[in-house]
């Protein structure tokens, strides 16, 4: 038997097991022990991701009614519907950490939990539907693909499915822009104008520069996060530049050029003051997005109450019916037993007695 200076307590052994799982790059599952801070960080991150999907329905949903072809209308409606589906998977993943969807919704509506700031920008033309697919979903995929390997099992598995669908959306967005670029001059101008508006906010989606990212280091150590903000931002720029060239649009950054030495594109600095303002709640659509969500939630309250009341009543009626059935069966059983007894009594009656 090995002698250790101090026998670790239960907490210490649990922590050691957790650390070993993380070190092996294995998954932590809902019933495994985990440090409280790990749980809190995950809830914050998954909830923020779920909220982003739900709030993210609005900027594109804004154009469903005006989609310029029936095929585009179907594609867009299906895409926004997928976002609701992603929100569902993520809220479910979050619920495995011991917090309910209703609580999370409340945290969103009261502004105590955030969602991705990109959705606080307005959608002003139909080209924005394509640009959001190409740049915003593209940036989201860059952020999310590493999360498929995140240390928390339910989150990682939800992300695998979400990434598949996001990648499908990204192609659809790029395809819309490609098609518009083959259309009229007015359409090409619309695409360029849209890209000009969304380029910098897309770069901001990777979060503040690494030096100013307060939560990054611990999330990396826990295997919740796998790459730094700046690494992912660089990857996104490197992938997007050739796509922009193929599309025939200019990215609105005079500092954008290939750096042979680094083997990457150099690019300019996003306006971090604007990023901070939008994060603070002063973006073009922060108030509008939350008000829309709050209105939908409040206007639906009576429906959710009705569904709960109906379910309770149905369950109660089913139980009463079951009890009534049970009572009926008991009465019948009793009667049957009585009859059997009577029969038995008759059968055991001495012969001749009945004839008397």
């Amino acid at each position, binding site marked *: 038997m090995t002698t250790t200076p101090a026998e670790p307590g239960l907490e210490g052994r649990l922590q050691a097991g957790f650390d070993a799982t993380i070190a092996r790059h294995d998954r932590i599952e809902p019933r495994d022990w985990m440090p409280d801070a790990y749980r809190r960080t995950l809830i914050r991150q998954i909830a923020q991701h779920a909220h982003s999907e739900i709030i993210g*329905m609005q900027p594109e949903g804004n154009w469903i009614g005006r989609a310029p072809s029936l095929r585009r209308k179907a594609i867009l409606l299906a895409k926004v519907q997928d976002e609701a589906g992603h929100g569902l998977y993520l809220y479910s993943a979050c619920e495995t950490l011991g917090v309910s969807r209703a609580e999370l919704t409340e945290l969103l509506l009261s502004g105590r939990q955030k969602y991705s700031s990109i959705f606080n920008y307005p959608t002003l033309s139909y080209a924005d539907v394509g640009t959001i697919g190409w740049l915003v979903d593209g940036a989201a995929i860059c952020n999310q693909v590493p999360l498929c390997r995140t240390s928390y099992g339910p989150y990682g598995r939800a992300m695998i499915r979400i990434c598949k669908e996001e990648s*499908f959306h990204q192609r659809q967005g790029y395809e819309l822009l490609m098609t518009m670029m083959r259309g009229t001059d007015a359409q090409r101008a619309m695409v360029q104008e849209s890209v000009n508006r969304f380029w910098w906010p897309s770069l901001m989606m990777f979060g503040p520069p690494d030096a100013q990212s307060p939560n990054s280091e611990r999330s990396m150590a826990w295997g919740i996060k796998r790459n730094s903000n700046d690494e992912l931002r660089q990857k996104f720029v490197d992938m997007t530049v050739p796509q922009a060239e193929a599309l025939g649009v200019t990215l609105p950054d005079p500092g954008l050029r290939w750096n042979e030495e680094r083997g990457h594109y150099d690019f300019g600095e996003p306006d971090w003051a604007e990023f901070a303002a939008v994060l603070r709640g002063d973006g073009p659509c922060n108030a509008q997005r939350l008000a829309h969500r709050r209105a939908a939630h409040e206007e639906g309250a009576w429906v959710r109450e009705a569904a709960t009341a109906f379910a309770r009543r149905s369950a109660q009626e089913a139980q009463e019916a079951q009890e009534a059935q049970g009572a009926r069966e008991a009465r019948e059983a009793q009667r049957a037993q009585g009859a059997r007894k009577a029969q038995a009594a008759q059968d055991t009656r001495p012969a001749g007695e009945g004839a008397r």
Partner: protein
Amino acid sequence: MSTEPGSIAHGSVQPGSVQPGSVEPGSVEHGGIDHGSVFDGLLGGDSSQWAFGTDFEDPLAGVDTTTPDGVDGAELAAYCLMLGDDALIMSQRLSEWCSRAPDLEEDIALANIALDLLGQARLLLARAAAADPGVVPALPEGSPVPPEDALAFFRGDRDFRNVRLAEVPNGDFAHVVVRLLLFSTARLALLERLRAGRDHVLAAVAAKGVKEVAYHRDWSGRWFLTLARGTDESRRRLLAALDALWPLQAELVAPHPLERSLAEAGVGVDPASLREEVDAVLAQVLAVSGVERPDRAPLAGVGGRTGRDGLHTEALSLLLAEMQVVARAHPEGRW
């Protein structure tokens, strides 16, 4: 129909169109992740491998679109517009619910139903254009706008043949439940009969639609019962919606001369023949829910003319103003 998110969404638009190759879960799981792989296929390659292709695909490609013997092409086209416009306008109203439903599950369900009806509309408008190219509005020469879109986005409100029930503005959740129950009850009865019609395209559209609309009726019927027997508030709202929409119900089963004529030709369905079944289904839902059939007269037309005649409520031209604004600004646009 599955209400599982993701699968529905893609399935409703174009089954089997998802190309999962770019982000295989397996490859993601086994480390060595390559972010670039996510974007495979964005550049170069054959565009037709993409989800929806980059060109418009004729939804009726490969289907025999010749008009059945003894049927007037213009009449058939007008009939297809009636059924197609019902689906299109209903879909437009339902899609307004997107991101506004009481719960995520119902948001997904309503989008699903809107997508089903949009799919039916596309096939029916394309059929109308094939039966009589004369119904398609004229666009500038060389315009790439396909016929289904020319019909959806470049007709004025007086050329729309939908029933007025489809176009009236949305109300609360009880309103969408009642509207959909009335609409889908009549449409299901109609599509069931249309499957046996002599027009191959209409019969095929109907066969596909029956499964979809059966789900729509089921969804709205279950919510009707839930709201009727939920809380006092939900019952009050349900009864108000039923009262408001009931006058528009009769139009669903009121025959237009054109519908009669096509029914006689064995191509269409006479809505009057649906009355018995529609009444029985609605009576059943009302009875289970403990709701009286409203005592409300049908909404009058103008000089006897209603939706099927192109005579609508004030709501339709506003709905179309929104729906058509981008398409009309770019009559030579490619989308």
